[in-house]
């Protein structure tokens, strides 16, 4: 399992050596939090989230159980923290990419590209958000975040893209569902390295959902 080996190596790299390090308490805390996020992802891959114990997660993170409880309270707290970390980085990336674009096709491409870049760069956290998290709202954290961050951008296709009518809630919902499905599949299968390949299909799918395939073909190459 190359992915898990890379994650374990990353945790080890982030580990602070014993003794005087000269690091501030905030830096130590940031290192511990990051290691716990990666350790949870590792445990979820190896044992499954449900089975992964606090002991195992702490051991993977090279921290004590006490540290895990002090920082997050419980395993679910680690998951929430990891998801917030992933989503927290996603929002500015999407905003920046969207603002740079001229017209809705550019903005859409930029927004989707920002999502895929973030997923590729933080695949373990993304996996927690898109695969392991599950709420009773029918959406997981990744889907919820994309709906909030991309929904307006998607709806602008209907408004600015010449499509008759505007994007109803249903269209937004199914467009988000369609975008998230292959992302979650690749993350679940450990194929996060090639997630960027999805960009043309995602663009085509979203534009087609709102404005029909003719419009999609104008902008997707």
């Amino acid at each position: 399992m190359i992915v898990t080996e890379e994650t374990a190596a990353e945790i080890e790299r982030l580990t602070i050596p014993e003794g005087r390090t000269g690091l501030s308490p905030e830096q130590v805390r940031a290192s511990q939090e990051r290691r716990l996020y990666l350790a949870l992802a590792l445990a979820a891959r190896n044992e499954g989230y449900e089975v992964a114990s606090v002991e195992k997660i702490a051991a993977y993170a090279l921290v004590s159980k006490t540290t895990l409880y002090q920082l997050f309270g419980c395993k679910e707290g680690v998951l929430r923290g990891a998801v917030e970390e992933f989503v927290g980085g996603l929002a500015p990336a999407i905003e920046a990419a969207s603002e740079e674009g001229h017209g809705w096709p550019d903005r859409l491409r930029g927004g989707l590209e920002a999502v895929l870049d973030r997923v590729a760069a933080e695949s373990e956290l993304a996996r927690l958000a898109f695969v392991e998290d599950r709420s009773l709202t029918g959406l997981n954290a990744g889907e919820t975040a994309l709906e909030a961050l991309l929904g307006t951008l998607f709806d602008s296709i209907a408004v600015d893209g010449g499509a008759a009518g505007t994007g109803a809630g249903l269209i937004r919902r199914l467009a988000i569902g369609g975008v998230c499905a292959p992302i979650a599949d690749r993350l679940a299968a450990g194929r996060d390295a090639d997630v960027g390949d999805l960009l043309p299909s995602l663009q085509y799918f979203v534009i087609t959902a709102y404005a029909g395939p003719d419009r999609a073909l104008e902008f997707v190459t």
Partner: protein
Amino acid sequence: MSEAPEPDKLPRAGHGLSPDQVRANQEQRLISAICRVVAERGYRGASVSRIIGSAGVSRSTFYELFESRSALLLAARARLERRLDTAIEAAAAAAGSGDERLHGAVSACLAVLTDEPGSTELLFGASRLAGPEAAGMHDEAMARWSLQLRRCLAGLEPKDRAPDAAAPGASRSGHARGDDQLARMALGAGVAVVRGAAVRGRRPEADEVVRALLIPVAGYRPSTRAGP
């Protein structure tokens, strides 16, 4: 929502059923119960205590029949998948246009999901959380149903497409109606619609699911085609 006991609970005595029939009844009640409890509380909140309480079976009976909660989920998933596969295959083999077969398959699948309350969440939400085996079953099923959807979309006649839809079969950008990735996204869109309806406690309409599945083929314009 309350976790109502399974209505088909057997009377304590005098039912005249064989041990095998009793066992089958208990299994089915447990399968129905895990669907209901997962839908109400999520997989993480679906403890064995809650499941057996909802099913009206004892803890010892539960462990005689299933090794664990995860084993019960696998059994429930397998049973539901078989029913959905059968429904899809029957619809695919039926007479009629491609559009009619797609509508038939969707309607039949929705009937299965409605017949087993809570099954939508178990199939599409909980399974990836229930360990590698359940996650593998989920992913294999989605791949299988994507393939069937791709074949179905590829077989649609031009008349089934919107008037402004792209030329049949393929496109300048290489996106074909039979594209694997687009079929998977369309299935994801359909599942999103079904799950969205399920969490609101209503049965989704076949038409809205079909529209989601047809996106790669025809697109959908709320103001010009029958909308929600």
